[in-house]
């Protein structure tokens, strides 16, 4: 009875349903935790099945409830959606594990899990939605859930940060909705496929409307994915969230909005628009500024989580850069970086969270010699940091390699240089963290490593960094197909 065609919709539905069931189990939290983790695992399996199906037989279109477009809701799972969904499900499962087993930072455990599940459901929904209105609905769910998983920490700073995030994110949603409305006005369609068909005949008549719509979308998604100069909410939000939330937000959520933007761009408008309108230039400039500003701000941070947050701003710039360079290898680099940055940043946030919890130290200047007390955790941090710098042999090198090659393909050597400069800057802000931890006076004899179950996710992510650093061939076909979707 089960057909793999149902897998995409099952992913979203299961996560949504689990999000409502888990709070009901608050009296039997053991059961709730099992449900939480097993849903995560099942989703990984389903997205794996989906990915294989897509690789084998091309794009899957699933009409929810059997109602086809243009009136029904469709999920369109192409290579990009399958890839994104796979990344989201695997990284989230690792974070679920950490959240369940790591020392608790949040009072309402069941509520927290529910929010995380809703956020995951929304993220899968965003990357698979076939019509632009459902995409917007999922963006809204994920935005609100993202704000909530910061606020659940309950400290003054986290509530302040989440409030600021909420305001800016609402602004972004407004822009997004306006852009969608304009597109609807021009085409009379919400399904992205039908929109594309309609636009191919009508686009020429409404150049100004299209430009405005795109402008609003850039602003909307730019705010949500922290594109410079719309990133101002991110450092506070990501630095003050609970560890698991920081990892989810930095590792996955910001990227999902980029994916959504790219999907709208290539599914409805076609990438030609990047050339006809000055969109490509604008994005290239903003991406470069993100990279530089994020790195420069990160250098002056002493608070480790803020440093990681600013580094995310820079890394988001990489992804935008790759997509807007629009050569095949640059796009492949951006797609790689979605996964690889998710691995690295999740690892770093989780490991730093462990360090902060075990030692109470939040600043680089406090962690002298701490690596001797927590050798495993700091080995993971070192690996993550080396990968962020892009040392060959780690995964971070792969995406940099593809991005830089892509920049040269586009005949824009300056962006290859930019990537190098940014690598140097990341070395300047990541290495002091490692050096301080390994050398210097040992001021904290009573700090211990966390238990093995907490270290497990760190180990898995560390191995992934090494594995993808040396053997990226496993995911290569999927990445290549996705890049072809965008650059064709």
């Amino acid at each position: 009875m089960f057909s793999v065609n149902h897998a995409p919709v099952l992913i979203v539905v299961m996560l949504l349903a689990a999000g409502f069931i888990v709070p009901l189990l608050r009296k039997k939290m053991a059961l709730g935790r099992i449900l939480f983790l097993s849903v995560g695992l099942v989703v990984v399996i389903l997205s794996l099945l989906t990915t294989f199906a897509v690789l084998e037989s091309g794009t899957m279109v699933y009409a929810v409830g059997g109602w086809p477009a243009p009136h029904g809701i469709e999920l369109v799972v192409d290579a990009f959606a399958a890839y994104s969904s796979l990344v989201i499900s695997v990284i989230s499962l690792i974070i679920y594990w950490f959240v369940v087993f790591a020392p608790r930072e949040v009072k309402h455990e069941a509520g927290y899990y529910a929010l995380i599940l809703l956020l995951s459901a929304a993220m899968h929904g965003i990357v698979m939605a076939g019509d632009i209105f459902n995409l917007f609905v999922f963006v809204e769910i994920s935005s609100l859930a993202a704000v909530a998983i910061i606020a659940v920490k309950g400290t003054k700073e986290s509530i302040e940060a989440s409030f600021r995030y909420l305001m800016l994110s609402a602004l972004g949603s407004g822009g997004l909705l306006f852009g969608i409305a304009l597109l609807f006005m021009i085409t009379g369609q919400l399904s992205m496929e039908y929109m594309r068909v309609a636009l191919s005949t009508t686009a020429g008549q409404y150049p100004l409307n299209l430009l405005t719509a795109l402008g609003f979308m850039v602003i909307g998604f730019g705010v949500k994915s922290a594109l410079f100069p719309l990133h101002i909410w991110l450092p506070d939000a990501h630095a003050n969230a609970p560890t698991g939330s920081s990892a989810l937000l930095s590792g996955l959520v910001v990227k999902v909005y980029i994916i959504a933007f790219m999907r709208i761009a290539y599914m409805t408008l076609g990438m030609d628009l990047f050339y006809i309108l000055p969109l490509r230039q604008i994005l290239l400039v903003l991406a470069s500024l993100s990279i530089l500003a994020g790195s420069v701000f990160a250098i002056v941070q002493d608070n480790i989580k803020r440093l990681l947050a600013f580094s995310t701003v820079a890394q988001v710039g990489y992804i935008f850069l790759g997509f807007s360079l629009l050569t095949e290898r640059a796009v492949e680099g951006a797609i790689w970086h979605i996964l690889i940055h998710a691995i690295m940043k999740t690892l770093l946030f989780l490991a730093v969270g462990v360090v902060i919890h075990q030692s109470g130290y939040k600043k680089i200047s406090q962690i002298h010699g701490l690596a001797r007390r927590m050798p495993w955790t700091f080995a993971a941090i070192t690996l993550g940091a080396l990968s962020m710098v892009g040392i060959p042999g780690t995964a971070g090198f792969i995406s940099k390699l593809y991005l830089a090659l892509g920049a040269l393909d586009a005949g824009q050597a300056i962006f290859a240089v930019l990537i190098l400069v940014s690598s140097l800057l990341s070395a300047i802000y990541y290495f002091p963290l490692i050096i301080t931890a390994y050398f210097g006076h040992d001021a904290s004899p009573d700090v211990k490593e966390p238990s093995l179950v907490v270290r497990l996710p760190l180990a898995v992510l560390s191995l992934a960094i090494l594995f993808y650093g040396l053997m990226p061939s496993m995911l290569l076909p999927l990445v290549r197909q996705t890049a072809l979707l965008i650059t064709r």
Partner: protein
Amino acid sequence: MNLLLQSPVLAVVIPLLLFVVIYMVERRSWRLRNALAVLAPLASFVLLAVNYPRVLAGESILVEFPAILPPLGMSFSVDYLSLLVGLVVAGVWFLVTVYSTEYMAKEHAKNRYYPFATLTLAGTLGVVLSGDLFTLFLFFELMSLSAYVLVVHEETPEAMRAGYKYLVLTIIGGLALFFAIIAVFEIAGTVSFTAGGFVAEASGLAVLAFYGFLLGFGIKAGIVPLHVWLPEAHPVAPSPASALLSGIMLKTGVYGLIRVVFNVFGSEVIRDAGLDTILLILAAVTIFLGSAVAIAQDDIKRRLAYSSVGQMGYILLGIGLLQERALIGAIFHIFAHAIMKSTLFLSAGAIIYKTGKRRVSEWRNLGREMPLTMVSFTVAALSMIGIPPMVGFVSKWELALGSLDAGSWGFVLLLLLSSLMNFIYYFPVIQSTLFGAQHGTSDSPSKARELPLAMLAPIIVMALVIVFVDLFPQSGVLDLAKRAAQALFLVVK
């Protein structure tokens, strides 16, 4: 799987694995740790040496792993040049590690030193045995980063400062290399070393790539003005590590340049684009400044470090002349300087180990107390000055003949001037240590004694090599250097 075919790979992989093994066993047994650390370079040496007959027979050995890191892939190869340099690396490394088992016994954090020294060995051998630019880059970064741990070993504020400078310049160099490599890949679609080079013409991007290589390898080799990290980083490291840094790791920079000039661009392209002029100017400046500044140093290890800068200039000169004879000199000097500078650093380290005196001006009369050490030091210093029949003379001779072949009288004069400066800064050391008794302090009772065997033996072995390699041509070092230079000039188009 034929073990012999894989031997170059194993020569790299075994130290890499031993890094992990040492890390696991070191808490249980320091003897096993030391034994494994000594075994690693020995095993690599043997694994390389078995290739000697095949390489001499003209076979080229290439092992490829295209699945790793597409689209570039990894490959290992052994030819004359990499065999010579690889044997030097593993051989000197072995002797230095034997020495360090005794020298480091008094030091702290030995459990950090040995694994990272082994990891650095893996990186260094990887650089030498790589068959393409990308593999070279991968191991170059591994070597550079793990050597950081050796540089800052003492953890003093000066060491941390020097280490940070080293680290930042290493990263800059690495990024410059990265850019150069992808630029070359963009131009030619390959990064595998090819006889005669694979970059067809010196387009704008190609020239930019060349500067990237020059920056990346130049920083590592300590070419003036990119040498700023070197005189600080080499002296602060423990003496065996200084010997490895100055004697071995600097050479990876010039080795990389040789590969880039002859196997990536090809001597024709370099000459047509006038890039050799830049190499020659840098070489001249490096030789002159390195030697001149060394004179002013009182700290023996700083003096040796600056001397290394000058000596790297010799090798750069040999590359930049784009002339077979000069290249023979350059390649031979890789070997000669590795041996000489390691001997000097090890014996200087031995004196500091015994007496705690780092300043040359305090080294009076030590020749009486540590005769064998001082004789070895003297032999190496004389060789640096270029007295026949030591190895240092041979490389200078070939370089000078090469300069004449190229019609550049100026460089011969420069070589002579540099020899004179070498004399000025080595001779006072020899004089005051061997014949310093007259100066009055001889009556003060000194506790310095000759060294324990594990420290003394490596120094003496290397001193013997310095004296006798040239007297016995059948040892084959010069022959290998000649064949390597010929192979590099061989153009297959």
